[in-house]
């Protein structure tokens, strides 16, 4: 018999599943987590809240990857260059100490002042950046270091040289390498997680997402330009894409929403880092208890399940009155 404690969230979940929006719900985890996740989902974000997430995710004072690296980790040793062609400052990589153990870090890095922003190419990596990331993944694998990635980029750089140097292939191979690793992999979405540029370092065991971050297949502007044929319809596109943390949790693509200080992470970066650090520590502990082969198997199974579709033969007949 399920205890009262257990029944309550389960009942709520089945009730929530009845809503058309929640057909894709894949809530998992222990009771405590389940309850927290359900609390999040009970109120659906309004259109205004979704657009506010987009704005906060891109806020110029929002903490970037290195702001978290600095606050959360000790002895950060930055590693540069892909050992073939170039150094790409849009993606930072390195080793660091976290909670008494060495971890590998890969983060998309935007810049704050004009010079820094140009140097970082606004956080848009070239293939060289992803190849540098793969080099660090290999180090992590060899030495058994867990890998933590930070997602915060408008996307992979859409330039001539990036194409000539194999942008698509680099993104594919970076994911393929992540599918092979047997060390724990955690992604933290701290700002904009956009498109292939994000998923290149986002094929992981657990995804943590800050409450005002966004995660999307395309930027609202890009989507508006294609589907509405007008980039100015970005708010409509954002609302349709549902890139906010609550919808991502409902759709089962992230594992946990990490709280931010009231008003957004930019108002108190130290507190935002503390909150993210707590979630990261707990998640890593969980993953470190799982043997590497099993971890990889679970990771593959996780993505095997991704997506929502139907088989025609099981299609329910249209109900009268609809």
């Amino acid at each position, binding site marked *: 018999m399920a205890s009262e404690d257990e029944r309550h969230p389960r009942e709520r979940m089945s009730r929530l599943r009845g809503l058309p929006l929640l057909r894709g719900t894949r809530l998992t985890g222990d009771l405590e987590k389940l309850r927290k996740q359900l609390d999040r989902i009970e109120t659906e974000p309004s259109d205004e809240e979704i657009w506010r997430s987009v704005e906060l995710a891109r806020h110029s004072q929002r903490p970037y990857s290195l702001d978290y690296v600095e606050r959360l980790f000790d002895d950060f040793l930055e590693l540069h260059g892909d050992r073939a062609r170039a150094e790409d400052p849009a993606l930072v990589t390195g080793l660091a100490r976290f909670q008494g153990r060495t971890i590998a870090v890969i983060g998309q890095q935007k810049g704050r002042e004009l010079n820094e922003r140009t140097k970082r190419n606004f956080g848009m990596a070239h293939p060289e950046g992803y190849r540098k990331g793969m080099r660090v993944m290999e180090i992590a694998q060899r030495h058994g270091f867990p890998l933590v990635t930070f997602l915060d980029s408008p996307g992979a750089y859409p330039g001539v040289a990036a*194409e000539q140097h194999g942008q698509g292939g680099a993104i594919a191979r970076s994911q393929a390498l992540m599918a092979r690793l047997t060390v724990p992999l955690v992604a933290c979405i701290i700002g904009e997680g956009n498109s292939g540029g994000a998923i290149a370092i986002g094929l992981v065991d657990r995804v943590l997402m800050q409450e005002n971050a966004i995660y999307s297949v395309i930027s609202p502007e890009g989507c508006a330009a294609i589907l509405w044929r007008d980039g100015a319809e970005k708010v409509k596109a954002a609302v349709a894409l549902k890139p906010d943390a609550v919808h991502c949790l409902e759709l089962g693509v992230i594992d946990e929403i990490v709280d931010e200080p009231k008003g957004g992470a930019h108002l108190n970066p130290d507190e935002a880092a503390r909150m993210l650090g707590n979630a990261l520590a707990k998640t890593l502990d969980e993953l470190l208890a799982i043997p590497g082969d099993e971890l990889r198997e679970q990771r593959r199974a996780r993505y095997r399940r991704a997506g*929502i579709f139907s088989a025609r033969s099981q299609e329910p007949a249209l109900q009268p009155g609809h």
Partner: protein
Amino acid sequence: MAEPRIDVSIEHKNLPESSNDDKKHPNTCPGCGSHYRDDELAGNLRVCPQCGHHFPVRGRERIEQLTDKGTFEEEASDLRSEDPLGFFDLRPYTERIAEAEISTGLGDAMVIGRAVIEKQPCELAVMDFSFMGGSMGSVVGEKLSRAAESAIEGKVPLVTVTASGGARMQEGILSLMQLPKTVCAVEDLRDARCGFISVMTHPTTAGVLASFASLGDVIVAEPGALLAFTGPRVVQQTTREKLPDDFGQAESNLRFGHIDAIVPRGELRPFLGRSLRLFRNGQ
């Protein structure tokens, strides 16, 4: 003395709109302007006999072109897209899918199944650009995964023929998840030591290029195919860079080392037969 100026604006006004843009008849060659009956073009594998331009090929016709007669056994044809986001742009997503199903006769943008190519058994996954721009949503991702599983089960190589504008925006973040999903499927295939030949046709871009299509043991492309993560128009608009004439084309990709060969359509079938024999390693 100035020449008298003749005002031609009225004549231009009366020209039909379609004559001055690229909305030509689908059987008119954009390369040389030759026009063909549909059966003429089909008989020549939809390659222009005059200039060699490769016209698009629909999924089922591609399967006919490549496989030994009567060998293709379709799998997972019952899969259909859902509308998990309740997506609505200028039209509802459900309406777009229904329309694509009717106009293409397909369930989604990919057809998979067992096949034999020049006596070599394989698993075949073919994309169709006419179904919503060959975009990859949950169904395409699932079909690619099932194709990989079927290849592993049958211990045969996988052949994919891609034609795609990228991830399907109408399924939002779930479409992005099809990138890692298909990448994991290819990794399973590699673990099982099944060969994987990726044939890229025009266009293979964005999410499909940035996932399974780029992971073939052998990657080949048709002549003139656009293979780019970001297409020329967006690159131009975003960066204002001057684009090389062959930007993103198969020929440029070959030069930069991203693909193994360019194979004209007429040679594709024997090429696949030969490759499949090599991966079979005398078994």
